């Protein structure tokens, strides 16, 4: 029976099918909680567990999809490049905001990991979790963090940010659309940005810009972790 699954076609087909179905589901539900990436991970994992399919069989296809992670991350350059005018015009508040935001994120996570006595592989996995998945995963992997935990933490953060963004704007009384967008992008990356776009054009653009800038700044900070 296992031989049936021992081919890369199985993993690739299952992953595409799960993702397609979950994207359709979100389009129907229009709810941030129905995050297609999170649900696809749950669905694929459930299929493997229920049908007792060995992870190694799934990973024959998984490895092929993984190969595209690097190129996909590199393509973030295109989205940063297309926003270069926006960055040029507002570079000072954007760089200050993203630097303070990234530093706050990493410091608060580090302190809490120590408080909860989590080990180094978990701490490293969580440290970059406020930036976009491709960059967070690269940092976590390069420093020995547990990559799948990073993926889960990044999604939880994004979903939390997109749900609570309107509430946080009220609590902290953030009036400037500019600051609203950057704060959303810095704290909850691409998933938050989809919410920022709903709040307004300026918020959406700044949130999108914050994804790239915070990503690069977080990589630079991570150089100091050994």
């Amino acid at each position, binding site marked *: 029976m296992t031989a049936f699954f021992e081919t890369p076609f199985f993993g690739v087909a299952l992953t595409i099918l799960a993702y397609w179905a979950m994207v359709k589901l979100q389009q129907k539900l229009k709810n941030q909680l129905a995050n297609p990436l999170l649900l*696809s991970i749950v669905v694929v994992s459930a299929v493997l567990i229920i049908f007792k399919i060995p992870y190694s069989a799934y990973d024959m296809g*998984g490895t092929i999809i993984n190969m595209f992670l690097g190129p996909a991350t590199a393509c973030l*350059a*295109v989205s940063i490049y297309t926003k270069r005018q926006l960055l040029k015009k507002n570079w000072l508040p954007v760089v200050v905001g993203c630097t303070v*935001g990234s530093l706050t994120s990493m410091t608060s996570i580090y302190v809490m990991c120590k408080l909860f006595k989590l080990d180094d592989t978990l701490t490293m996995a969580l440290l970059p979790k406020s930036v976009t998945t491709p960059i967070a995963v690269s940092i976590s992997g*390069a420093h020995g963090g547990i990559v799948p935990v990073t993926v889960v933490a990044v999604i939880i953060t994004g979903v939390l940010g997109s749900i609570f963004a309107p509430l946080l704007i009220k609590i902290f009384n953030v009036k400037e659309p500019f600051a609203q967008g950057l704060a959303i992008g810095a704290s909850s990356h691409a998933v938050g940005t989809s919410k920022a776009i709903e709040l307004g054009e300026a918020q959406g653009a700044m949130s999108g810009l914050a994804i790239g800038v915070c990503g690069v700044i977080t990589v630079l900070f991570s*150089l100091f972790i050994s």
Partner: protein
Amino acid sequence: MKILVQFGIIFGVCWVGYAISAALPFSFPSSVISMLLLLLLLLFGVLKVDHIRAKSNFLLSNMAFFFIPAGVNIINYFDILKSSFVQIFIICVISTLLTFAATAYSIRFTLYLMNRRRAK
């Protein structure tokens, strides 16, 4: 053929990024080096967005898909996730709150300083 060439350009950049990362004495993610390389090539006009548009649109618009296998790997770390999930969740909530507030307030402060300087 056009898409194939675009694939070639991006995979080529990633290959150079990997080589640089392997040569560095400290650990720096190779995909981020590739991203910075690609950004430099675009900024200096060596590459035009048109040269890689189709392929980069494909990768960027399906970004989440490529992370599914990395996430499914969590089934091998189920015990760790189960024993630390509450802590991980608390960390996500509090750090998201703090990051949001710190970013918003630091921008407000910067804008305030900039306006004051302009007023003088």
